[in-house]
């Protein structure tokens, strides 16, 4: 798009996008580290994650301040308005993703106190799928790639399937051996966290769609079939 007559307006919008991308990078890293901490039973890494979540929270507050100022001083319209609004919405989702990753790190610390379980592998696998989803939706955001956003949006079903199968698996273990209940419950909550992160990624995909096209994704659900799936 061509530049604004007032150049500093362009700079401010670019900074918004950059800040969201930075938050996205942090959230992505936090999630992948949280999964590593679970699998490798790395207590130090888990503690570091809990601290690093604060960084995302601060970035989000900063971004909210910027958005308020931009709305008050620039009155963005059309694509600029959508860009401002999306930045605000997406940063909210990323902040929640950070919280969920932090919660996984806390549970990892607790898991370290009991015997390792092979099921952590399944959680890690699900986490890997969710991590890819998050990575792709952030790419879709920075490159304004609607097709990729729609693709991510469709993957939410896959995550739900993962979650349901993990749920059943964990239940079976708990019924067989009640000593595993503590561990399994924490793993179940982790799976739930991952499922929530998937939901937030889907929200972000919807926002990317709105940002680029000006239309809500649910409205375009039917026409979404015209976008090819990249599976």
């Amino acid at each position, binding site marked *: 798009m*061509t530049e604004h*007559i*007032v150049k500093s307006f362009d700079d401010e919008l670019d900074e918004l996008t950059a800040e969201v991308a930075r938050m996205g990078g942090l959230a992505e890293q936090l999630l992948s580290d949280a999964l590593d901490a679970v699998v490798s039973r790395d207590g130090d890494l888990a503690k570091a994650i809990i601290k690093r979540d604060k960084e995302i929270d601060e970035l989000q507050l900063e971004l909210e301040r910027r958005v308020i100022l931009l709305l008050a001083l620039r009155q963005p*319209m059309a694509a600029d*308005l959508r860009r401002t609004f999306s930045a605000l919405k997406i940063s909210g989702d990323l902040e929640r993703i950070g919280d969920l990753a932090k919660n996984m790190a806390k549970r990892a610390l607790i898991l370290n106190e009991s015997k390792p379980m092979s099921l952590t592998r399944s959680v890690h696998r699900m986490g890997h799928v969710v991590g890819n989803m998050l990575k792709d939706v952030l790419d879709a955001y920075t490159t304004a790639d609607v097709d990729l956003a729609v693709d991510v949006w469709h993957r939410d079903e896959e995550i739900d399937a993962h979650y349901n199968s993990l749920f059943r698996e964990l239940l079976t273990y708990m019924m067989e051996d009640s000593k595993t209940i503590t561990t399994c419950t924490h793993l179940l909550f982790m799976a739930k966290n991952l499922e929530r992160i998937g939901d937030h990624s889907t929200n972000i995909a919807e926002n990317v769609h709105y940002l680029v*096209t000006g239309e809500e994704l649910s409205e375009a659900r039917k026409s979404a079939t015209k976008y090819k799936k990249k599976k």
Partner: protein
Amino acid sequence: MQAKASSAPKVRARNVNVFYGSKQALFDVNLDIPDCSVTSFIGPSGCGKSTFLRCINRMNDTIDICRVEGDIHLDGLDIYARDVDPVILRASVGMVFQKPNPFPKSIYDNVAYGPRIHGLASNTDELDGIVETSLKRAGLWDEVADRLDEPGTGLSGGQQQRLVIARAIAVRPEVILMDEPCSALDPIATAKIEELIDDLRAHYCIIMVTHSMAQAARVSQNTAFFHLGKLVEAGPTEQIFTNPNDTRTQDYITGRFG
């Protein structure tokens, strides 16, 4: 008066071309304007929005070198037909200008002037009634009721603008054209006019030229964007300001050219 509801356009323009001498100012404008709502014309200076506005009550007739081609219909009637008297047309299609232009007469006479020359009142009681309802509808009555004999020019800018709106209303128009009605007013007076416009739209088709995009967004239900003499895009205001179809509209309303 009851609020009118109708799906047929109040004003319908087809292939309107306007020339000032050899210079073409408008190119093939096609636009339907609904009744009982506010339609804003936006666009950079010289884009033709005021020219088009002035076509709707044949104000361009007063400019010798101006030539209007195409059709403009008001309620299905061709306003450029030979048997149309522009003076009577202008009672139906009132106009409010950028700078308030009250007559150098009393507040009362400013409003009574139109009804008198158009013979809308048969006695002074009736005329008093028209003046009062017009001033009330223009939101000015409470401020001037006790000084109707004072000159209209003695009012503040915002009050003068509401006075000329009352003057336009007094001759029972169907359409009110407003050419940047708030550009000479402070924010408070502007807000009062905008509030008034919002009240008036229940009864009139209001068409407004504005340079303030925020104003167009605030007060109008439909917005039309003009550029270089062409109507680029027209549609519901919320769509124009959140998701315009044309990149020129997008660039203009987001401050990328103009």
